[in-house]
């Protein structure tokens, strides 16, 4: 793999990235809101991968966060490659990066399932889980060995922003990166919901989730459906990786672990197995983190996020949109 140059500053989830400095006139609330929605979009896209795989295979794919990290790296590599061959028109470059990174990351997702999970299907319940943790460590090390341990920078690609609302008082500054992230997330969510609810593939996925054996009896190739689920999850994670890269301007081998834990939390908070739940959970975690950082302290933002998770799970054990089991069997 192409070796990327290094960067010194260490960014942090939840803190506005260095490139996104907002004028003080906005106060604290509005930037926190915008930043929280942006961050929440990224978490939500990753959370979908957790929730879908859990729904169909019944396992937590702990390597999913690292697939997101691979997606971010691949996005960076494709960006630099495009720049070096002279494609600098930003919308075109973004589009190319998006599709190439999605395709390549999807290949990683597919391979992970094929190599680490499929051979263990039908084995004891914890086997794929252990394998997933191994895969996560492997992917981190793989990125570290091929790219080094330091942060890799991307020069700001999308710059500028817009002021929305009244000029004096209640306006809010939203950067172009934030606009792209939120719009892209909404578009992907709509597309994804349509795939799952309307297409034959989506129906087959839901069938596998509800009764795998019956799905096979009706001619559904369960292995292929599971593979495609991993492919879809990885493609969404790669988009999240690209967004992260654009937003924070740097990547390293460890971002997948942090983002993975948060996105997994988001999936559980929203109700694991539920697609809208994953998105809502992602947004909530993003908002809690940014608001806690803005009003209290950045250091304890994770404590806040996880405390909310615990409180929600005490009162709604299956998460916000998780389904209570009421069906007749």
């Amino acid at each position, binding site marked *: 793999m192409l070796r990327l140059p290094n960067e010194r500053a260490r960014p942090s989830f939840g803190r506005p990235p260095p490139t996104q400095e907002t004028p003080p006139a906005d106060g604290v609330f509005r930037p926190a809101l915008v930043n929280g929605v942006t961050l929440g979009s990224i978490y939500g896209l990753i959370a979908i991968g957790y929730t879908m795989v859990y729904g169909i295979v019944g396992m937590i794919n702990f390597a999913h966060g690292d697939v997101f990290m691979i997606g971010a790296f691949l996005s960076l590599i494709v960006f630099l490659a495009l720049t070096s061959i002279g494609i600098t028109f930003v919308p075109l470059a973004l589009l190319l990066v998006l599709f190439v990174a999605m395709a390549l990351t999807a290949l990683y997702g597919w391979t992970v399932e094929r190599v680490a999970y499929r051979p263990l299907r039908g084995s004891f319940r914890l086997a794929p889980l252990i394998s997933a943790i191994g895969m996560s460590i492997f992917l981190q090390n793989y990125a570290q060995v091929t790219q080094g341990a330091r942060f890799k920078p991307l020069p700001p690609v999308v710059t500028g922003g817009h002021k929305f609302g009244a000029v004096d008082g209640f306006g809010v500054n939203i950067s172009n990166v934030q606009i792209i992230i939120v719009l892209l997330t909404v578009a992907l969510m709509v597309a994804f919901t349509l795939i799952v609810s309307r297409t034959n593939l989506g129906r087959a996925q839901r069938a596998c989730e509800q009764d795998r054996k019956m799905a096979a009896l009706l001619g559904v190739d369960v292995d292929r459906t599971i593979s495609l689920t991993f492919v879809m999850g990885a493609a969404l994670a790669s988009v999240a990786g690209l967004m992260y890269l654009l937003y924070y301007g740097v990547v390293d081998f460890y971002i997948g672990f942090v983002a993975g834990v948060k996105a997994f939390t988001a999936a559980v908070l929203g109700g694991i197995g539920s697609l809208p739940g994953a998105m809502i959970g992602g947004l909530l975690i993003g908002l809690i983190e940014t608001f806690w950082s803005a009003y209290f302290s950045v250091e304890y933002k994770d404590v806040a996020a996880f405390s909310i998770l615990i409180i929600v799970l005490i009162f709604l054990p299956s998460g916000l949109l998780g389904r209570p089991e009421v069906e*007749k069997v």
Partner: protein
Amino acid sequence: MTALLSLEGVTAYYGSIAALKGVDVEVSEGEIVTLIGANGAGKSTLMMTIFGSPQARDGRIVYDGRDITRTPMHEIARLKIAQSPEGRRIFPRMSVLENLKMGAAVTQFAHYDEDLERMFAIFPRLKERAAQRGGTLSGGEQQMLAIARALMSRPRLLMLDEPSLGLAPLVAKQIFSVVKELNEKDGLTVFLVEQNAYHALKLAHRGYVMVNGKITMSGGGRELLEKPEVRAAYLEGGR
């Protein structure tokens, strides 16, 4: 008559426990064949073994001249064998319509609209409930849906595991007459497992009796119905 489906010396195991101990069964094109037997005899196991789960350990399963003993389950479904399995297995969080679509998927939806009309004509109840979630249907409605879902795949061989289970006598009768009609009009081959031995044997051309993982008797439907052993074990008092 050539056999559409034949099992030769099939054994199947759950772990180390034998559930099928060398079963020979033949179903010819255009026939209705029924399999009766006490609880735990291995009838449902036989139905599932034809689809490869549990897989036959010994013996051979041949369908339409092709050995399907080791064929993966989803590929067997594509050979135009459909099963309404034990327990109905309706997708609980899908609507009635979506459940039917799942049945039609193997045909690439080639005759979907036409077949849907036909199912709604046979089971008007399903039409009324088209948008309802499968899991909230009554037991009888689920049974109708399971049969309709199997028929949506336009099978040559229809396998039904206890289709009359939990149905009101009138509805059970209706299901049997649907089976008979499909067999007579469309030449559909049917392999039927039933507790309701009287109705099943009356309907079927031929029948098999299974005891403890083995076929102990076979013959014409009416012929079995007359046998004192069958009457004693499966009919008297059972009806």
